[in-house]
């Protein structure tokens, strides 16, 4: 362990055996005086730090950018978060510096390196959605979220790995590579936005975009020890997000602090006339929520009614996860919250309903990948075998499984028993959430029943993988916003893996989640969520 600290070169080989991070981190600071921590023990907003530094000319955008790129270069061979890294990052950083020199407006995300999940369209980079069927596909347009990021001055650092078309919970379902969890390279980063979560966790970028259809932002955030924000359905335009299940898909945000996730959301949300399902509701300014800890009252969350979803702490949930959540709950109580248990009897119905609905919609959304367009066409004399062959050849097993399930569920004679039934369950889930949120400000649950597991562990057991989505899918069915933030660790041999807890809010009340999350995070003592992989690597 100490040797790894003394010799960073072999750090990567040993990190998975390292001790719980907070100890390790504290020591590493001492052991490596040259290290330049990007974070104190409490998470700070890197976006605000960068913005402040570059505008005050304390540091240049190029300097920040080089730090991240160096770290990316060092960690990427092990983590494999990215499917594509932009070659223009430094040029864009220089351009921002020039603008600052000329006193031009550079935007609220100026100089912020953002990684984008590869199912979100970028005109200047490939967008494969993790599928062979879209290999080398370059969209003709930027997704609205990407366009807004660029307008805010952000630098798109690259495209991150994912389960093919967002279908999976481990990122092993990518047609290109397996991403590792920066906390333990033998573990999955979660999924489907595993690349985006791992990239933020390994500090390869400042923040990242993911997408969340059934938990694809929140579960990997929990597995990788970062903040994951799933906005209300309709809060962020889906235009340019390669559709998996249109009525559930949302673009979400990763950050290493609540403020970063919130500031990222701030710049991408709002109505978009290109997405008929995007909301016209006004967006408040979230930045006012991210006040310094010095200004907190003694019980800053006094009077906040927190409901713990009782169904989420029972059987099938890892005991260490439960105790981490209990720890988080008592921390919330310390902050002044009144915490009660709340039962959502329909909770267990959400999982099957989700898999019916998501599969049904995906079977339709993926029809366009038929070999006629986007390449990957097999040679055939006959049209139906061209379709069959191209699709059989191009899609991975998990995608095929969901297309088959969805096609079945929508077939004549089965529609009522599956699709329609699942829609009815969805309505029940929505109502029960509504009722629970009428009597509580926020609801709480784990983000996943366990911490990250080993690569390959559930690969051949899709049902076990699906069951891991139990904590998150209901929120998508209800279309609600949810914030996952790290709150503790479970033991992983001699090392530790982070655990996140989920806060669910009322529709379009991201503001409250961000406020509570920020206060929680800024007052949580004794934890640091920087993975050992980079804890003492802040080598420039």
């Amino acid at each position: 362990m100490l040797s790894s600290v003394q010799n960073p070169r072999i750090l990567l080989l040993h990190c998975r055996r390292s001790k719980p991070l907070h100890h390790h981190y504290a020591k590493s600071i001492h052991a490596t005086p040259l290290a330049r921590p990007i974070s104190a023990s409490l998470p700070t907003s890197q976006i605000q730090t960068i913005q402040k530094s570059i505008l005050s000319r304390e540091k240049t955008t190029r300097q920040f950018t080089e730090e991240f790129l160096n770290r990316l270069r060092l960690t990427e061979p092990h983590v494999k978060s990215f499917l594509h890294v932009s070659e223009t990052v430094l040029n864009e950083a220089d351009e921002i510096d020039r603008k600052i020199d000329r006193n031009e407006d550079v935007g609220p995300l100026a100089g912020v390196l953002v990684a984008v999940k590869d199912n979100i369209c970028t005109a200047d980079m490939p967008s494969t959605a993790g599928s062979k069927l879209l290999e080398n596909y370059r969209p003709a347009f930027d997704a609205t979220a990407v366009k807004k990021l660029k307008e805010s001055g952000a630098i798109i650092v690259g495209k991150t790995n994912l389960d093919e078309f967002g279908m999976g919970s481990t990122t092993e379902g990518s047609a290109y590579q397996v991403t590792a969890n920066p906390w333990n390279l033998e573990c999955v980063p979660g999924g489907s936005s595993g690349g985006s979560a791992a990239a933020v966790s390994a500090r390869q970028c400042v923040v990242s975009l993911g997408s969340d259809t059934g938990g694809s932002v929140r579960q990997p955030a929990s597995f990788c020890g970062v903040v994951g924000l799933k906005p209300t359905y309709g809060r962020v335009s889906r235009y340019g997000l390669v559709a998996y299940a249109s009525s559930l898909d949302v673009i979400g945000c990763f950050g290493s602090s609540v403020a970063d996730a919130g500031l990222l959301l701030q710049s991408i949300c709002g109505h978009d006339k290109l997405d008929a399902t995007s909301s016209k509701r006004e967006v408040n300014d979230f930045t006012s929520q991210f006040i310094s800890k010095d200004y907190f009252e003694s019980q800053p969350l006094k009077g906040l009614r927190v409901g713990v979803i009782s169904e989420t702490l029972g059987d099938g949930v890892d005991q260490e996860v439960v105790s981490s959540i209990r720890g988080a709950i008592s921390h919330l109580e310390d902050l002044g919250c009144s915490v009660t248990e709340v039962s959502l009897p329909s909770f267990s119905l959400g999982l099957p309903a989700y898999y019916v609905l998501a599969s049904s919609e995906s079977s339709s959304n993926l029809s366009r990948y038929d070999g006629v367009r986007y390449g990957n066409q097999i040679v055939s004399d006959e049209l139906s075998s061209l379709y069959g062959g191209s699709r059989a050849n191009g899609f991975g097993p998990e995608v095929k499984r969901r297309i088959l399930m969805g096609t079945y569920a929508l077939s004549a004679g089965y529609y009522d028993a599956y699709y329609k039934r699942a829609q009815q369950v969805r309505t029940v889930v929505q109502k029960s959430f509504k009722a629970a949120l009428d009597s509580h400000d926020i609801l709480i649950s784990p983000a996943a029943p366990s911490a990250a597991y080993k690569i390959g562990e559930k690969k051949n057991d899709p049902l076990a993988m699906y069951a891991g989505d139990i904590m998150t899918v209901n929120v998508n069915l209800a279309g609600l916003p949810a914030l996952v933030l790290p709150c503790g660790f479970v033991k992983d041999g001699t090392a530790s893996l982070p655990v996140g807890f989920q806060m669910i809010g009322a529709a379009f009340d991201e503001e409250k989640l961000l406020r509570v999350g920020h206060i929680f995070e800024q007052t949580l003592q004794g934890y640091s969520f920087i993975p050992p992989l980079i804890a003492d690597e802040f080598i420039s």
Partner: protein
Amino acid sequence: MALTLFRGIQTRPLLPYSSAFSARKHVIFCSMQSTQAETSMKTKQQAPSNFTETARAKAVEKVLKDYEAIIGIETHVQLSTTTKAFCSCAYNYGSQPNSCVCPVCMGLPGALPVLNSKVIKCAVMLGLALNCKLSMTSKFDRKQYFYPDLPKGYQISQFDIPIATNGYIDVDLPLEFGGGHRRFGITRVHMEEDAGKLLHTGNRSYSQVDLNRAGVPLLEIVSEPDMRTGIEAAEYAAELQRVVRYLGVSNGNMQEGSLRCDVNVSIRPIGQEQFGTKVEIKNLNSFSAMSRAIDFEIARQAELYNQGKDDEVVQETRLWEEGSQKTVTMRKKEGLADYRYFPEPDLPEVILTEEYVNDIRDSLPELPEMKRRRYEEMGLTMQDVLFLANDVQVAEFFDATIAKVSDIKLAANWIMGDIAAYMKNEKLSINEIKLSPEELSELIASIKSGTISGKIGKEILLELMKKGGTVKGLIEEKDLVQIVDPAEIEKIIDKVIANNPKQLEQYRGGKTKLQGFFAGQVMKESKGKANPGLVNKILLEKLNA
């Protein structure tokens, strides 16, 4: 985007629209305007062969003594909105392939549909015009099937809650076919998007996809199985065409595919309640083709039943072949296709308010049926009524003309006579000729008041249609005012008689037929301006003096 090519694919030999397309390629659109004024009965008269025509009519007549035909029609009307249904692309028929496309109508990953509100407006207009019940809340659904002209792998359509249901359309049958009024039921009207087009190469080694048409808004109108003959079916379709043109929601052009009809035909012995097996006919590019195809199909099915080959009448899609004047099998149905409809998650529900519907109802134009009833009440014959109300432009021209003229019949005659003939010869629509309804009124008034003669009127009309201008201006310019002064006419007559002593002698010798000669000479001398009545009266007096 370049054309998408795919190599080595054998597509189904006969496709719903591809064959329509290839047939279309040989049709040059010289007759676009005349098509607009054409009724099914007129095309009927232009049918390729009078012999086969008569033979078929007789065959059908014979068949219909024992059998009753049941005909239902599905019509797709392409809306003439400025932009497509779900994106902001303009669509112009005949544009370069793949030049009217964007990520949305190409179905690119990540692109999303946003409904063009004009589509709803058109649907509500047509729903009201067809006397339908409107669904105040409806939704879009996805109809899923694979085909290269369908870039998303599904068509956005409406399935279980169409925007309009349960209406009817009133039709007046042409007099040549016995006339009479019919009311045909409309089952539903729903909104959907069109697919692209496939262009097959000559040797079929590859096909090309043109997505210009993909995403163009359509209204699908499904009729009740209320039609009994080819003529009724063709008249139903013609009336639908009139309605969409009156409403201005579509150009209704069949050759361009803006109005496409698929017909379901079955027959059953008269008196039997149970329906026979129905056959769908596609590739009907004109009303006349529709009528002929249905008659052929009725005769074909009856022949099979008569021969005891009942099992050979199967549920299938047949294609009308214009060349052989026959329907041929396109594909046999293997059970019902499963389109796996489900609600389109990318689009919110379509919610209509009472206010919105009322506003549209209040702004509806006078529809063909209302026009026909009004013309009928004005005392016009059914022949005139059908002619005038057939083309919305003609009807509007007529209405504008009679706003200032008391003699309605005269106005109708001018339009149906000289004006229609000129339009037909020059292949122009009534809006393209230079004559305005105001000038036609003026012309009619000038003739009635005796300012000009009818003959001069015809000449002026031609001038007005060709070059425009005003009646007054032309009369002045050419000095065409009729001579009604008897003294002046007398002078001319005296001159003519003096110049033709030989003929006068012959006349007085008993060859009274020469009066015509003298009258002609007088008209010639007066440059056609002399009032013919006065000329005859005075001439007779002088000749017989």
